C-alpha cells in the first residue's frame, strides 16, 4: 500500500462503499455527482445532499485494457467500465467475470477492491 495522505471526501466515499453504505451527492434538481463536490455544475445549486447509491448499476460502456499504466502493470488485462447508478455514473474495474462476457446493460454491484500492482484501493464492479 502506498503511504500517502488520504484524499478527503474521496476516501470517505470509498469507505462508504466498502461498508455497503454507498452514497452520491444530489442537488435539488436531481442531478447526481460523486464527492468532493460543492456545487452542481449543471444548475449551480449548492444544496447538495447525500443520497443512498442504488445497490445495482448497469454497464454503460466497457473496455479490456491490455496496455496499462505502470500502476496497473500486473493487473492487465483488466476491464474498466462506466456503470450507471441512477442519476450518477461511476468508473470502475469489472471483476469476477470473463472479459469477453462483459456487455453493455449488464447489471453490477459496486465494491472496493485492491489493485494487483500496487495494493491501492479501487472501485470494483461485480455481476449481480
Amino acid at each position, binding site marked *: 500500500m502506498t503511504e500517502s495522505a488520504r*484524499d478527503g471526501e*474521496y476516501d470517505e466515499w470509498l469507505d462508504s462503499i466498502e461498508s455497503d453504505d454507498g452514497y452520491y451527492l444530489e442537488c435539488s434538481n436531481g442531478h447526481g*455527482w*460523486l464527492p468532493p463536490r460543492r456545487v452542481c*455544475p449543471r444548475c449551480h445549486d449548492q444544496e447538495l445532499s447525500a443520497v443512498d447509491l442504488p445497490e445495482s448499476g448497469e454497464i*454503460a*460502456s*466497457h*473496455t*479490456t*485494457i*491490455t*496496455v*496499462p*499504466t*505502470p*500502476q*496497473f*502493470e500486473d*493487473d492487465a488485462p*483488466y476491464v*474498466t*467500465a*462506466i456503470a450507471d447508478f441512477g442519476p450518477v*455514473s*461511476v*468508473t*470502475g*474495474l469489472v471483476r469476477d467475470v470473463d472479459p469477453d462476457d462483459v456487455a*453493455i446493460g449488464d447489471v453490477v454491484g459496486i465494491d472496493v477492491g485492491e*489493485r494487483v500492482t500496487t495494493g*491501492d484501493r*479501487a*472501485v470494483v464492479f461485480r455481476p449481480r
Partner: protein
Amino acid sequence: MSDPRIAGASVTHFGKHPERTGRDLFAEAGLEALSQSGIDPDDAEALYYGNFMGELAEHQGHQGPLMAEAIGLDVPATRVEAACASAGTAVREAVKTIRNGEAEVVVVGGAERMTNIGTAAATDALAIAADDLYEVRAGMTFPGAYALMARSYFDQYGGSHEDLAHIAAKNHEHALVNEHAQIQQEITVEDAMEAPTIADPLGLYDSCPITDGAAAAVLTTEAYAEEHDLDAPVAITGTGQGGDNLALQDRPHLAQTPAADKAAEEAYGDAGVGPDDVDFAEVHDCFTIAEVLAIESLGFYERGEGIAAARNGETTRDGDLPINLSGGLKAKGHPVGATGVAQLATVAWLLDGSHPRADAVPDSTVGVAHNAGGTVASTTVHVMEVQE
C-alpha cells in the same frame, strides 16, 4: 479588428527524437517560422506556447520564458496547458492578442518530448488528462477512454472496427508524401483489423503514436503584413473554444463531443461561414473514433453518419471533404503540446498551395483545424481563409 495573418509557420520532423530536448525542438520550429515570416524578431511582442507533460517528461515547468529565450525573444511568454489541445488554446490566445490590438506580431507554438520516458511512463503521463480520483484510479488510460467512447458509439449508432480501420488506412495513405510525418507507411484495412489490441475495440492502428516534435507560427495584423510587404495570404477568421465535464462518467453522452460542438459553432459564427463552406479540415484523430466524433461535431455529418465517411471515400484525398490530408495525428504523429499549431500550419499550407497534398484541394478557400484535449473536455476550432 483585424483577422490575424499567418506570416510564417514551421514544424519539425515528428517522430522519435529521445535525445533531443524540448527547447531544441522548439528552437528549430520557432526560428524557422520567424525566418520564413520575413519579420524582424525585434518586432515580436508575445509568445504563447503549448506544452502538456513537461514536468513529467523533462522535469521542466515554467516553459514560457525558457522557450522565448530558445528562439531569441525577450517578450512576455505564457505556457498554455489544455492537455492535447494546449497548442490550439495557445493559438486562440494569440488570435485574441492580435485582434484586441495588444500586439502586431505574436509567435505561437508548442512542443512535446515524450519518447525519452518510454511507452509505460508516457501512457501514465497522458492518462493524467483524465480525472485522477475517478478515472485514473479505475485503470483508465487514454486509449481506454476512447475505447469506452467507441463502444458506446457502436452501441448507439452502429458501426464497426472495420469502419475505423478505413480511417486508419486513409490517414496513413495521406501521410505518404508528408516528410514531417512520423509514419510514412501504407497500411491496409486488414492490417488495421489484425493489429494487436490496446483497449478493445481499439487496436494499435487505431491509435496515434507517441511522438516528439514542435511547431511554431508567426501571426501578424493585416496592416503590418501590408506595410512590410509580407507574403501572408491566409487569415485566421474564426476562433472557438468549448469545454465539458472532465470525467466521461459525468457526461450525458459517451458518443458525442459537445465541447467540440460549442467550439465549432463559435468559430463558424465568428468567421461567418458554415460547415458547407469548408473545403477540408485537419481534425484531432488521436484515435480513429475521435475523427468520427470530430467530423460530426464540426457539422459535416449527422450523428451516427460520420463513421462511414472514410469507408465511403468521402473524406479521402479524392473525396468531397478531405479530412487529415497531413496524415492526421494517426500517421503524422502527436507531440501533444505541438499538435494544434501543426494543424494550423498544415491548413495554411494547404490553402496557399505549398503543402505536398495541396493538389487534393486545388481551389480551396476555407479550411478548419479542430484540436481536442483529453476525452474532449477541451476543444478549440479555428477557421482559416485565403484573403485577397
